[in-house]
């Protein structure tokens, strides 16, 4: 096992609420590390609606989601948090001498005195296209990302989608594949025009086939795909396919949170409203992923939860230490931490 990275508080999820938790924890001198499945901070704000305005952040009459994330990143800078992106937290276990061990899907190991779950609607994962029986092929002949291009060499590759991922992999895998088919439901693409032009040029020279339509059925055995049925404007066609890559965007799934032994209530984590602690002492849940009577899934509610959670976390991280309530406006010691005094 790799040498664990040690931190006071491990925060799962780098959305707005996870980011603001760094601020509240930082005021109490707790060092934070954040893990997020996306490749950048911001969570849903960054992934789903970065350009959309938000109107209910106190004192900011209008702010775009990305701007809110940028401002939070600026606000927590004095506390110098560390981040691990592109990782899903898969394991969370209690250590015998207190604290927790947290592991990711790439086998990184973290040890923290406190864990804060700020995972919003869960982790973003590739959307599974609604094709009957597709589960049986996943990981064997249907993939949602390309880890090794060699797995596609000499195969009849079918790529579905019209964005950059679909077009990029169509072009990259075309030279190694035995045959390449791209299926998209319409002739317009979201992908970069240059990639689209290259794709059409390859179609002209017979290097690949582009079909308009939607995949409706798969055939094969023991997880090995053989063919796919495409429903197009002129009816159904069955094409040979031994590898399929669907690119249908991301969706939010609760994911491994369900396996950590916490009490759950309809895919959210019940907490108290004093500390926002889960059924396991030392594990807190804040933001959209928690539930308590009266819960509202608002960013501002998550900020409030972060502030109260930080008080309780401090008692665990520094037992016996007196907690002094202070205002950033008047406290020289808080201002020193913020680098302004």
């Amino acid at each position, binding site marked *: 096992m790799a040498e664990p990275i040690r931190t006071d508080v491990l925060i799962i999820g780098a959305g707005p609420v996870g980011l603001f938790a760094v601020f509240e924890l930082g005021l109490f001198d707790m060092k934070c590390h954040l893990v997020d499945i996306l490749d950048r901070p911001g969570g*849903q704000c960054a992934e*789903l*609606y970065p350009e*959309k305005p938000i109107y209910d952040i106190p004192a900011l009459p209008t702010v775009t989601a990305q701007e809110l994330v940028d401002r939070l990143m600026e606000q927590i800078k004095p506390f110098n948090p560390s981040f691990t992106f592109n990782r899903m937290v898969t394991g969370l276990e209690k250590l015998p001498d207190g604290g927790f061990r947290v592991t990711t899907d790439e086998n990184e190991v973290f040890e923290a005195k406190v864990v804060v779950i700020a995972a919003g*609607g869960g982790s973003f994962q590739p*959307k599974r*296209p*609604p094709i009957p029986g597709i589960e049986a092929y996943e990981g064997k002949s249907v993939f949602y990302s390309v880890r090794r291009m060699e797995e596609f060499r000499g195969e009849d590759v079918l790529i579905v*989608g*019209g*964005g950059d991922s679909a077009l990029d992999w169509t072009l990259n895998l075309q030279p190694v594949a035995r045959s390449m088919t791209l299926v*998209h*439901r*319409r002739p*317009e693409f*979201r992908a970069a025009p240059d990639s689209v032009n290259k794709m059409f040029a390859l179609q002209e020279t017979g290097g690949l086939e582009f079909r308009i339509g*939607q995949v409706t059925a798969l055939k094969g055995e023991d997880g090995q795909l053989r063919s796919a049925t495409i429903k197009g404007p002129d009816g159904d066609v069955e094409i040979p396919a031994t590898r399929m890559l669907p690119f*249908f*965007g991301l*969706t*939010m799934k609760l994911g491994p949170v369900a396996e950590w032994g916490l009490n759950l209530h309809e895919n959210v984590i019940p907490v108290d409203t004093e500390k926002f602690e889960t059924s396991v002492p030392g594990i807190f849940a804040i933001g959209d992923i928690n539930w308590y009577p009266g819960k509202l899934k608002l960013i501002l509610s998550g900020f409030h939860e972060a502030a109260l959670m930080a008080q309780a976390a401090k008692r665990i991280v520094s037992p016996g230490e007196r907690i002094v309530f202070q205002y950033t406006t008047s406290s020289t010691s808080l201002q020193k931490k913020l680098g302004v005094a």
Partner: protein
Amino acid sequence: MTKLTFVAFDGTRYEVEAENGSTVMENAIRNAVPGIEAECGGACACATCHVYVDEAWTDIVGEPESMEEDMLDFAYDVRPNSRLSCQIKVRDELDGLVVSVPERQG
């Protein structure tokens, strides 16, 4: 008030009175029409409020804009009369509009 009818996948009809200026999605959520999820809350960012506009109404409702078309790529069983209900604003001409809910959202 403008009358809207949602036809759930099981055929149940939900007739609702909608305020002009609201979106068709908001009325589905307010009236708990099953099968409309609206995960992103109406930001045209998720394709989980997909509906089929009744053939008699497609011309009046109109075509999706390009951003909506892009999102429809992520929806299930997209047809020529597919729309995202968060992008249809209720107005007088839509009085009597019928939309049906697909088998599932993405």
